[in-house]
């Protein structure tokens, strides 16, 4: 079998804080095949953004990679130097950061910012840069006249699209998107999702898409990763996880959405909030909030167990996996 496009193994990221080390990403595994759409979901504070920063090698102190590898097209990014990484960024992989609304430079036109990104990768004439910039704006549904606009002249949705266009300038193989739609209203959100999916099918790049709103990705992603307290608690084909969530946390996330169809039923969501990662609970980290908690959960730490096509970090699946 050929090597996957991206393969993350045992990745651990620690923030060194005044209160001691905070393990925001704890032995995470993630495999992304060429052209695949992977969604990473979980409540805020579960380590999603930290994981994306670590994969893209964009971490700054007090964050550091405490262990593990990030193999991208066969190379371990963790051991690469800044120069080698710069050669890969934008061209081989690109990142659309959370609050992309503010990630654009407010005092430069889109044209100037696109030019900088392309010029860093050498041999383009001004004419090529202009043509490619118009082309990517057109791809995301923005009139190329806006190349000469400053970010504040664009609506929130347009800024988000302009960031995605920038990420596509050099046709990378992997685009990482951290909550790109969270600041948009439902119609704008839905139309951006449809557009990302169409672009992905057209151009063939792989997407890792981070969101706290699980319902958003149900129709768009191939693979789903559910994170809780720095760990992957469930991983599997998206449809499988939505239809038969294995982990009590995934089930809780799914049941916390009111629906516009069917009878109106009272919902309770998941009581409480994710733990402080400086001092996570012993045993399973979901114990304080889990409706199925039992004695053993407080003492044994679950691993990821296979459950059909998915994997779940819950002791209830221990026996199933062993048999």
């Amino acid at each position, binding site marked *: 079998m050929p090597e996957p496009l991206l393969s993350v193994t045992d990745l651990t990221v620690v923030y060194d804080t005044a209160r001691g080390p905070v393990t925001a990403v704890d032995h995470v595994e993630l495999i992304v095949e060429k052209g695949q759409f992977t969604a990473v979901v979980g409540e805020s504070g579960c380590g999603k953004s930290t994981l994306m920063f670590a994969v893209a090698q964009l971490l700054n102190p007090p964050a550091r990679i405490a262990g593990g590898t990030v193999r991208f097209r066969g190379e371990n990014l963790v051991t690469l130097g800044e120069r080698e990484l710069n050669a890969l960024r934008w061209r081989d992989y690109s990142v659309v950061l959370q609050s992309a609304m503010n990630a654009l430079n407010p005092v430069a036109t889109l044209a100037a910012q696109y030019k900088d990104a392309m010029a860093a990768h050498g041999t383009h004439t001004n004419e090529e840069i202009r043509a490619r910039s118009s082309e990517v704006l057109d791809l995301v549904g923005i009139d190329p006249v806006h190349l000469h606009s400053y970010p504040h002249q664009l609506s*929130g949705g347009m800024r988000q699209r302009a960031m995605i266009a920038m990420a596509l300038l050099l046709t990378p193989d992997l685009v990482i998107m951290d909550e790109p739609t*969270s600041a948009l209203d*439902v*119609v704008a959100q839905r139309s951006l999702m449809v557009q990302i999916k169409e672009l992905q099918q057209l151009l063939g790049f792989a997407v890792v898409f981070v969101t706290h709103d699980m319902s958003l990705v149900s129709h768009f992603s191939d693979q789903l990763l559910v994170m809780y307290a720095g760990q992957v608690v469930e991983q599997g084909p998206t449809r499988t996880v939505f239809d038969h969530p294995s982990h009590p946390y995934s089930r809780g996330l799914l049941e916390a959405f*009111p629906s*516009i169809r069917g009878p109106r039923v009272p919902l309770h*969501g998941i009581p409480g909030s994710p733990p402080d990662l400086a001092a996570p609970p012993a045993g399973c980290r979901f114990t304080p909030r889990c409706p199925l908690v039992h004695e053993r959960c407080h003492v044994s730490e679950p691993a990821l167990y296979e459950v059909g096509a998915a994997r779940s970090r819950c002791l209830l699946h221990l026996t199933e996996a062993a048999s």
Partner: protein
Amino acid sequence: MSPLLETIGLTRHFKVGTGLTRSVLHAVDDVDLAIGEREIVALVGESGSGKSTLARLVAQVHKPTRGEIRYQGQPLTAHRGRRAKLAYRGDVPMVFQDPFASLNPAYRVSHGILRGLKLHRPELSGAERQAEAERVVEAVGLTPAAEVLSRFPYELSGGQRQRIGFAQALAHRPKLILADEPVSMLDVSIRIGLLNVMADLRETEGVSILYITHDIAGARYLSDRIAVMYGGHVVETGPTEDVLAHPRHPYTELLLSAVPDPRAPLDVDAAAAKTDPPVVIDPTPSCRFRTRCPLAVDRCHHVTPRLHPVAQGHTAACHVTAPPEGAQ
């Protein structure tokens, strides 16, 4: 009997641009909206449709350009005394659901609540104020109340801060809470918790709520009636279940089709979902949805549709799907 609060032809324009490019932005145009006692009305619509402006008009943060607000049957005139204005502010508070904007980081949680009590209910003694502060904090589901009151905002989670926003409003013994939810959506568990707090407040405190949101599923969960805004107009209104089961305005249909529902197959009309905002700067008479509407006819380009009844208590403003009676 008249409703608790009613807006009649409520309109707010803003002047934008300077000199030659001076023009008028129609943020809210001709809105008739009624909110009954103990009623929860959801106001939904896309970003920029005028929801917050309407709430600010009702809260008397903005002065209307035209139109009237009637509260308990009486018009709110500009010339009321300070006392009447203060009483209205206590009766109809606004709760910003942005947990970071609404609490002063330098003071304990108790500060804002006690200050509000002093201002709006001066008859209470110090001990009564403390007891009342504890009661409202408990009413929004935060315990132990005395301990929560002694915390600083940074010692609370986002969801807890939002509950404090409601507790502050409750301290005034409100009749109608204007709850404005931010675009950036909250975590699912926080969101459902707040929806339940609002539902409880109506039961236990008997308040009415105007719930402003992008989240139609949440609006359905909570509200009795719904009003859909587009480009400054209310384009459809009626009992929530009826409007969502039988939407009549093409924009309401678009909104419904955009709601992500993992339990339903993907159904999205990418063409209608394109998001050019409506023209609300110097608009000419017309339907503001015409540039995105799959049903638009000639008339939509030069006549503004008005709300017409389509079912019991259900109205819609569309030349094609809701023509005035007898016009068909």
